[in-house]
């Protein structure tokens, strides 16, 4: 009896100790558990050469083809840099963006290379004190990279883009042909096309309002058409959309919403999840078009069995609104990039890896078959294989300017407030919800 109690006590004590040990090691992520490597210490095998550096790389390439592209890039880079080892850690996008990165930057062992999307969110991450200023490390080559300014904070380079994205209309050429309509160049033509598409039994435009940010694309494009670039830039910088042209944009959007352009029940539709999403509706031919980023074709392929989709998809820019004060060819977009954390030695190694990712040969793979986006090295645009994306990339080059998605250009909280206010406006467009958009970034 006594011995069994003693055993029970030992077992309990062991369980408690295990739990306590588990708690004490809970701060870091599993990918960072290789502490010696992550801290840049020398490995025995490279004692004669420069100290070996191992970098953990958090990215959202959980699926092919980008997963394979990144793994090939690691092999190619490590072959050229015998003292640098890259550990690839693909993480699901929303988990990476919303949870893992903020927590890691608040912890003591953030990943040495992590994905982010530039703008105000990067600026906010810089305040953690963990993100490396790599201005000096990239100075010799950053000038040849398109969109690099979006990865600056306080005039310093805190990240580097590896591809760029543009938002526009992805449409079904076969449906347009069936209904007998052409690609619209003005908003009036788009409304006319919508009427014909609805009469033919199609949802003219699909939108994933459940996710809020697709709604924001619409309002932001109206804002780009109605506001001069300087006003847009100033509004984002001051975190206030109180200029009158933004109210004009809201009014124009409300008028457009009154034409009933979207699918039935669009307020409850997600943008990318499953066949019932807005992307799925276009892929299945229930809807004719969607305003989305250039990742949309790959999303559609993931939720559809339509093997002819790539040839059936076309792209056109957001229509012009003649007579408006803003640029009629400005585009909304963004990109994927990476930032560095760690010691100066690690930062230097990270910058070298980012330079490799931005080299022409890797750029050609990043935007190659099955991938999405435009290269940051313009010479590699020819590597894009999807005709619709080629059209988007060609237009991107001629655009008056590219404005970063507003919710990314702004710091996180104001950006999310803006998305929420725009989603509320979609639900009930009136003067009150329009005023809420104007004031949204400064809402506490």
């Amino acid at each position: 009896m006594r011995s069994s109690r003693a055993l029970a006590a030992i077992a309990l004590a062991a369980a408690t100790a295990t739990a306590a040990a588990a708690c004490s090691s809970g701060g870091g992520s599993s990918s960072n558990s290789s502490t010696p490597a992550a801290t840049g210490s020398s490995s025995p095998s490279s004692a004669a050469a420069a100290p070996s550096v191992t970098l953990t790389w958090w990215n959202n390439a959980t699926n092919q083809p980008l997963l394979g592209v990144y793994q090939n890039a690691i092999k190619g880079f490590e072959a050229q840099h015998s003292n640098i080892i890259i550990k690839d850690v693909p993480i699901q996008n929303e988990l990476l963006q919303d949870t893992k990165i903020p927590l890691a930057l608040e912890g003591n062992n953030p990943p040495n290379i992590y994905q982010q999307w530039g703008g105000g969110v990067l600026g906010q991450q810089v305040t953690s004190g963990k993100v490396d200023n790599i201005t000096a490390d990239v100075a010799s080559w950053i000038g040849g990279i398109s969109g690099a300014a979006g990865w600056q904070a306080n005039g310093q380079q805190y990240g580097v883009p590896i591809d760029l994205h543009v938002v526009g209309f992805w449409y079904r050429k076969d449906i347009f042909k069936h209904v007998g309509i052409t690609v619209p160049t003005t908003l009036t033509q788009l409304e006319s096309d919508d009427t014909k598409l609805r009469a033919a039994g199609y949802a003219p435009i699909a939108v994933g309002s459940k996710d809020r940010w697709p709604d924001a694309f619409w309002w932001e494009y109206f804002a780009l058409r109605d506001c001069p670039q300087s006003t847009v830039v100033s509004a984002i910088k001051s975190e206030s959309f109180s200029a009158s042209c933004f109210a004009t944009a809201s009014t124009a959007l409300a008028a457009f919403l009154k034409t009933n352009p979207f699918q039935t029940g669009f307020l409850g539709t997600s943008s990318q999840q499953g066949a019932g999403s807005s992307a799925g509706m276009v892929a299945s031919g229930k809807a004719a078009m969607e305003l989305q980023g250039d990742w949309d074709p790959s999303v559609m392929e993931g939720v559809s069995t339509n093997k002819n989709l790539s040839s059936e998809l076309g792209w056109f820019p957001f229509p012009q609104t003649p007579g408006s004060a803003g640029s009629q060819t400005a585009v909304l977009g963004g990109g994927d990039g990476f930032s560095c954390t760690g010691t100066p030695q690690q930062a230097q190694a990270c910058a070298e890896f980012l330079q490799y990712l931005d080299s022409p040969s890797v750029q050609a793979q990043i935007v190659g078959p099955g991938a999405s986006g435009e290269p940051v090295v313009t010479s590699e645009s020819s590597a894009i294989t999807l005709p619709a994306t080629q059209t988007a990339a060609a237009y991107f080059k001629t655009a008056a300017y590219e404005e970063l998605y507003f919710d990314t250009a702004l710091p996180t909280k104001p950006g999310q407030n803006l998305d929420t206010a725009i989603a509320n406006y979609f639900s009930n467009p009136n003067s009150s919800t329009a005023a809420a958009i104007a004031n949204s970034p400064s809402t506490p």
Partner: protein
Amino acid sequence: MSRSTALNAGLGPAATEDSVAAGPLRRPQWRGPKLRKKTELTILLAPGLILFVGFVLIPIGIAAYYSLFNWSGYGPLNDYIGFKNYSYAFKDPAFIQSIEHTLYLTVASVAIQGPLAIAIALLLNRKFFGRTFLRTVVFAPYVLPPAVTGVMWSLILQPGGFADQVFKAFGLGGLVQLWLANVHVVLFTVFAVLTWQYLGFGIVVLLAGLQGIPTELKQAAAIDGASPWQVTRRITLPLLAPTMRIWGFITVIGSLQVFDVIWILTQGGPAGSSSTISTYMVLEGVDSTDFGFAAAIAVILFAFCFVFALIYQRYALRRDTRGALTRAVG
């Protein structure tokens, strides 16, 4: 049992009185039993206590501390703003709306799921062919992970989806709604899905309670001429009351904290029309990385649950837990 045995066993007042009555003959008391009792209590309680303190009490304290700061999650906690996060919250119409929705779901859960669960439990407590199968069927939704429930119903409730087709098949096409997209309907839809998921839990809990009611009492009442309805009303339901009170407690706390199914179905939308305190908190904390503010919301939610739990314990559960969770009262 001999006196010495009684002492060794630490038998309460009688043994103690004997010892005191011994007067000058009293010998130093052997402290073995007390020490052993303390050791056992320590060993048995320590693991649970450590986990409770580490994963409940300390996080609550940390959340309360964070809620006093304007903190985005990046950098040090150096922008102390006192209770401003709390005042911001109660000035935000979206938060007030989320409280209203949470209260609606809580009240509706008790008022609608309760009678439904009792009625079905009473039905399933009778002997009939296929009873076990039916019991399994009603409990099955509760076994599903909420995430699966959310995804499944989001597909069923799509415009033109399975739900709409069922309505039309029964000639009720006029009742078809934009279940997840109409701001005036979506909260009722969410409640219907929550009822589908959690009704089975109530039924099974109440069935367990019904099993504990002695059949002799019902038989005696029947012999005395009580009708089946009188037996149910005068015998069964009063004896089922302790189980109903426990179910009510679990349901109210669960409703106040409800998150997962709603998040997957609607993310609290459209335009916040199905938001709850929990969805509001996640939007502010995770999506907007306003962790100081979200911590304040978490503390408010905790306060709601805690106050309710105290009141419920004091006025509803006290009679059931008398002498167990409370001190014995006369």
